[in-house]
């Protein structure tokens, strides 16, 4: 059928099953904006800043497992997406970003609102395209979705000059892609799978270390099967939060900089680190030279470049987590493997009893931020809930005190640590899961980077709830200044009163509530969660609370500041139980 490029794009998006896109119009994308008006399938959410569109698409992808789609104009529209694209790239989130571009014949002339967005995003996309001829468009869109969603997922950008959008094309959507240089490996090597099973059967102190790859691959069922079959303790990274139910007795918390002591002790003592869909990030490993030094390592990842990047590996398995974990479970079943971790679990449980996560009780009317998270957890645990976070202390407390029970119900900026991610990500998540409760656990600083997106939430009836842990500080910055810069609070003081978040919420026709004492907390949270529209709860929390325990930057993960006193793991080895396992 003959149509123009813009209509062909809409046709292609429909073929890809896209139901919603996030975007913002401008000159060169007007043909596309005109074409989407006629689509019955495509919904469009008009954000208030293009960065919000990318984060929303990212949040949508995290909770649905489907690629997020963005449409913006050239020049500033395109450059405004950069942070969101970088964020998705760091966290391996499937996303396809369409940017308008000036007409092909003026590219390279510094035309009005021209920017070299394929050049700019080259290091932060999995791949990108500049479409120079409308006849290439269907093939490029097909490839873009294929590349974004297969292998290790990631963002793909497609730059569309205005004359391409207007050009005539006989549209037919290709069924297949032709990418000779792109063939991700899904199935793990059989020999390596056997070796992994050997190690699991021999290990005395094994530990499953699971990350975002489990979520992107959809491997949580296999992960649980493996853990239960061999009774393996499981730690999930921040990116892997929800890959394993946190109330499960085998779940032993998040590792790394703000992990629990017992988690980091377990990693330090394990004799088999069974790593799935993780990348041994520095926030997890701390000082690499002392990370899990007593351990053999099995590393499963679909990206061969991650294996051995930071940590040498004994059994590398390149493949999709779901396939490989399934194969390992089958192999163990075939051999009638028996769990042998009872004593090891007792050691960990003993650490868990002695060094639980812990925070001081507030005095008088003090609202403790950790308590706010605990109450959010308690009030939402029986509902289908998505937790988004901002970045900073709020994020770490959310990791520590929200006990996520389900996969793909977590949207938090990992690798890039992007303040201002949470609210738009929550909006995107809500667009993907209309019936779920979506809560953004926010910091006052981060929220102010994107608070205009309340308008998006309100106007599009996306009833997200923002709970601000308002400490009047760039809290995590302040914490580092307190601990490592002699309490010199250079430029980290915001003050709790400006802006008035309740009035701000009201200005956007959202519910605004304030909490200034613990007694008000449940009432306000419940009112917000029950409210039919978006809501903001301004929790005036105690101002100088720190996130503990904490591994000092560059330190060993078993040597943590704060929390219940307890030295490096070598000093924790004095009890009988341990000796039994250690023999």
């Amino acid at each position, binding site marked *: 059928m003959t149509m123009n490029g813009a209509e062909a794009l809409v046709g292609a998006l429909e073929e890809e099953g896209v139901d919603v896109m996030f975007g913002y119009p401008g000159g060169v994308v007007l043909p596309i904006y005109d074409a989407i008006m006629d689509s019955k399938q495509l919904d469009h959410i008009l954000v208030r800043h293009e960065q919000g569109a990318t984060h929303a698409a990212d949040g949508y992808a995290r909770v649905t497992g489907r690629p997020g789609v963005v449409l913006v104009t050239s020049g500033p529209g395109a450059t405004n997406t950069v942070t969101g694209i970088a964020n998705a790239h760091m966290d391996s989130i499937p996303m396809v970003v369409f940017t308008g571009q000036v007409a092909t014949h003026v590219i390279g002339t510094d035309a009005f609102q021209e920017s070299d967005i394929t050049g700019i995003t080259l*290091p932060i996309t*999995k791949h990108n395209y*500049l479409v120079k001829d409308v006849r290439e468009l269907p093939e490029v869109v097909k490839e873009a979705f294929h590349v974004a969603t297969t292998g290790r997922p990631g963002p793909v950008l497609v730059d569309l000059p205005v004359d391409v959008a207007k050009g005539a094309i006989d549209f037919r959507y290709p069924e297949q892609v032709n*990418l*000779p*240089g*792109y063939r991700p490996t899904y199935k793990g090597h059989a020999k390596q799978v056997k070796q992994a099973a050997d190690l699991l059967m021999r290990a005395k102190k094994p530990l499953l270390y699971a990350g975002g790859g489990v979520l992107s691959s959809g491997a949580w069922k296999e992960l649980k099967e493996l853990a239960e079959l061999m009774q393996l303790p499981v730690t999930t990274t921040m990116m892997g939060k929800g890959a394993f139910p946190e109330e499960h007795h085998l779940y032993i918390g998040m590792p790394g900089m703000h992990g629990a002591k017992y988690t980091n002790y377990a990693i330090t003592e394990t004799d088999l680190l069974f790593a799935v869909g993780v990348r041994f990030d520095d926030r997890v490993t701390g000082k690499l030279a002392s990370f899990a030094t007593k351990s053999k390592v099995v590393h499963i990842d679909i*990206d061969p*470049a991650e294996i051995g990047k930071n940590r040498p590996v004994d059994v590398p398995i390149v493949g999709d987590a779901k396939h490989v974990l399934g194969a390992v479970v089958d192999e163990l079943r075939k051999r009638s493997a028996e769990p042998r971790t009872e004593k090891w679990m007792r050691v960990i449980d003993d650490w868990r009893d002695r060094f639980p996560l812990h925070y001081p009780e507030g005095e008088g009317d003090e609202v403790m931020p950790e308590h706010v998270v605990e109450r959010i957890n308690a009030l939402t645990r029986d509902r289908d809930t998505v937790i988004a976070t901002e970045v900073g202390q709020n994020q770490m407390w959310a990791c520590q005190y929200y006990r996520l029970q389900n996969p793909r119900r977590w949207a938090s900026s990992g690798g890039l640590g992007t303040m201002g991610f949470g609210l738009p990500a929550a909006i995107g998540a809500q667009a993907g899961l209309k019936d779920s409760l979506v809560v953004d656990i926010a910091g006052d600083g981060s929220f102010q980077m994107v608070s205009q997106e309340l308008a998006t939430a309100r106007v599009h009836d996306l009833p997200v709830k923002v709970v601000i842990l308002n400490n009047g500080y760039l809290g995590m910055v302040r914490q580092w200044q307190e601990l490592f810069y002699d309490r010199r609070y250079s430029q980290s003081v915001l003050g709790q009163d400006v802006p008035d978040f309740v009035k701000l919420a009201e200005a956007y026709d959202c519910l605004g509530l304030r909490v200034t004492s613990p007694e008000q907390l449940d009432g306000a949270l419940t009112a917000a969660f029950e409210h039919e529209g978006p809501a903001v709860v301004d929790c005036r929390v105690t101002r100088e609370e720190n996130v503990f325990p904490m591994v000092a930057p560059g330190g060993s993960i078993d040597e943590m500041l704060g929390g219940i006193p307890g030295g490096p793991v070598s000093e924790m080895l004095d009890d009988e139980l341990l000796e039994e396992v250690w023999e």
Partner: protein
Amino acid sequence: MTGTTRHTLSVLVENKPGVLQRVSGLFARRGFNIDSLAVGPTEDPNLSRMTIVVHAENTPLEQISKQLHKLVNIIKIQDLDPADMVDRELVLFKVNAPAAVRAELIELANIFRARIIDVGRNSLTIEATGTTDKLQAMEDLLRGYGIRELARTGKIALARGSKENG
């Protein structure tokens, strides 16, 4: 240069816009210096071959090759074994050549199987091909006469015939 060795990577890429930028950008981003990079079409018009010479230790080199492999337009990467490859580079030297030394220079060019391709009033331009080492030796000799300008293509290389796999 402690601990590093020179590697010659032969990289087969799809002939698509921006490929060169993707490859060179990746090296820069991951902290590698490229000694030389030569690129041109192959027997298949859809494919180009890049020959990249880098100094690196083995582990980081493995990491960069894995990262290179991830680029969608990269088809194949070989870290050529120096003992099992043929490699050539082309250099143009423009050398000071007053009448007194011309004969000497022409003789020198002959020894290196190089050719004189341009003759100026006071200069000669010499074209030489060979391995990097041979060209280096030639350059060292010519320096004594005064090299006015120099241009090198960078190395190109292929695995030897016995390495063919089909």
